[in-house]
């Protein structure tokens, strides 16, 4: 974030704090002898625009991420899942995500799905994410902030989305080409499509580290 952006934010009242629902899984929690905690691998924090929030990631995502030796977490921003509703739009939700990110034990990867990608994009403008992953992004501002600390950025979209204006705009803003996955953007939490998507993200992460 630029100094000017910080000065502006420090003069703006912070969003009302909420008790955030936060789910996490450590590699050791899987009770699998084969899986070892990898201290070099960054933790991963996920959020989604889906109203289920943190819980959406529990069945497949957290387990599979932890299975690669990473600390895996997800958070419900205000109004989602078990987190009470409170005032504030995009900015307040990005605030919730940053607040969750700093409680992760180490510098974390941010993964945002749908509207969650917009929160992650804003959060990465004020928290030095280890990497930023945008899955089928929605409502990302036209000029998202430059991610602080220069993390690698991944854009993953469903095949059907590749040509949409929204996806093009995000790809242009970050100067990257989208990766595609088979399936629907709403169907990312279970099933074969979801697993393929997740494996693509995890192998991208492993390559970047």
């Amino acid at each position: 974030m630029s100094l000017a952006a910080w000065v502006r934010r420090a003069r703006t009242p912070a969003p009302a704090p909420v008790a955030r629902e936060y789910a996490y899984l450590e590699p050791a929690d899987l009770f699998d002898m084969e899986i070892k905690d990898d201290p070099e691998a960054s933790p991963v924090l996920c959020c989604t625009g889906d109203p289920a929030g943190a819980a959406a990631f529990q069945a497949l995502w957290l387990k599979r991420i932890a299975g690669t030796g990473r600390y895996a977490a997800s958070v419900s921003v205000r109004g989602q899942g078990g987190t009470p509703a409170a005032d504030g739009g995009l900015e307040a939700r990005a605030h919730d995500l940053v607040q969750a990110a700093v409680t992760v034990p180490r510098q974390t990867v941010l993964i945002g799905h749908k509207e969650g990608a917009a929160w992650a994009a804003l959060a990465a403008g004020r928290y030095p994410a280890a990497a930023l992953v945008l899955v089928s992004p929605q409502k990302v501002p036209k000029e998202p902030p430059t991610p602080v600390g220069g993390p690698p950025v991944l854009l993953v979209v469903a095949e059907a989305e590749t040509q949409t204006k929204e996806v093009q705009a995000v790809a242009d803003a970050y100067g990257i080409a989208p990766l595609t996955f088979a399936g629907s953007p709403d169907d990312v939490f279970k099933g074969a499509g979801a697993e393929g998507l997740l494996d693509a993200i995890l192998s991208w992460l492993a390559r970047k580290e």
Partner: protein
Amino acid sequence: MQEYSSQAAYDRGEAVCVIGAGAAGLIAVKNLRENGFEVDCYERDTVLGGLWNPQNQHSPLYPNTHLVTSRSQTEIPDFPMPDDWPDYPSSAQMLTYLTAYAKHFGLSEHIWYGSEISHVEPVEGSRFEVVVKPAAGNAARRLRYAAVIIATGHHWSPNLPSYPGLDQFRGTVLHSSQLKDPSRLRGKHVLVIGGGNSGTDIACEAAVNAASCTHSVRRGSWHLPKYLGGEPGDFALARVGGRPKFLRRFLTDRLLKGPASLAARMGIVPEGKPFAEEPVRNGRYMEHVGDGSIRRRGEVARFDGFDVAFADGTEIRPDLVVLATGYRPKFTSVDPKLLGIQDESPYPNLYARMFSPKMETLAVAGLVEPGVGVLPIVHWQTHAIAHWLLVRKSDPERAANFRVQVRTEAEQDTAPAGTSPRHRLAVDAATYLASLGRIIDTLEQEPAK
């Protein structure tokens, strides 16, 4: 790293040396590493957090120390404090926060504890040889670095006043940094000397714990409560700073009206304009003056056996005297000339308050008294220093232009008109941040193709 004999200096290549693992040192390590530098940080104590760690031998914390700057104005810009913390976190929370920062960014593995830097010597043009003071029985280690950042703090060497008869005084005399345990105040007749934040906070502690409390100040300061207009005071004032100029004066006056008239009622006549100096920020103080649990006096004239005489001729008989007379900067490892220190003064003269005027690869982090949260300022300082070191390596032409700019910024830097020597480190936060912003903009511009 292995042990190195005192003869051979180990060459650390392009790595940067950071001295001190207080808040400023930790932020420096984080920002340098984020920009791709290898970093070795040396800390003379066995713990991190600097003055916020009560286990640090030089910690100046006194009973019940809380921040005087509010959470949103104190937190590091890219690592906010938890939003369920109070507006004014305690010193223990501040340590928790700095420890979490170090853990989150994996800083500890770059810190060498129990390693005091005794000497920093320029070698081979722009490089430095750094001497780590030997621990008992070992040889001194010498290492060479491409750059050195000094983050050794300036609140650990007490500024001690002298008064006639002080040596023979029969009561106990402590500097504010030695007070530590609140039970030392209990049942005592206490005299607190010094009207800064330390003196004012300690007077309030004595007001509720001691048998009596007298507070000696040699002149009036601006007093602000911790809240103004229903908001943390520094936040409220920062917001006013964002308004159009013609409104600022009006809005500031409106915020300060209440505190100013209360101070006047208590007989406190502040010197100078409101923000020429760092204000005292304590909402409880006036209440204690108002209910008589703190008695204010002027300057101390002399000590006499069990008694203390003030300039106005009155005398009291305290059991315990707390000298809350502040600190003096002290640089033990580097030739003062490299920091632009002249003659007997302990105060450096740096470009933009951070760059050595003599060596391009030597900088100091955190040597400012901005009257607002220090950590954000150190964040932007070290951001600038890291980018400067990058530009210097990659684009010598731009680097030369940049030096000219920094020197110009330094010439425009007229410190706020404080009256006391301690104000040599004071900067007007808004002006200084604007100058840091210009410096960073120049450094981050795309290099000309």
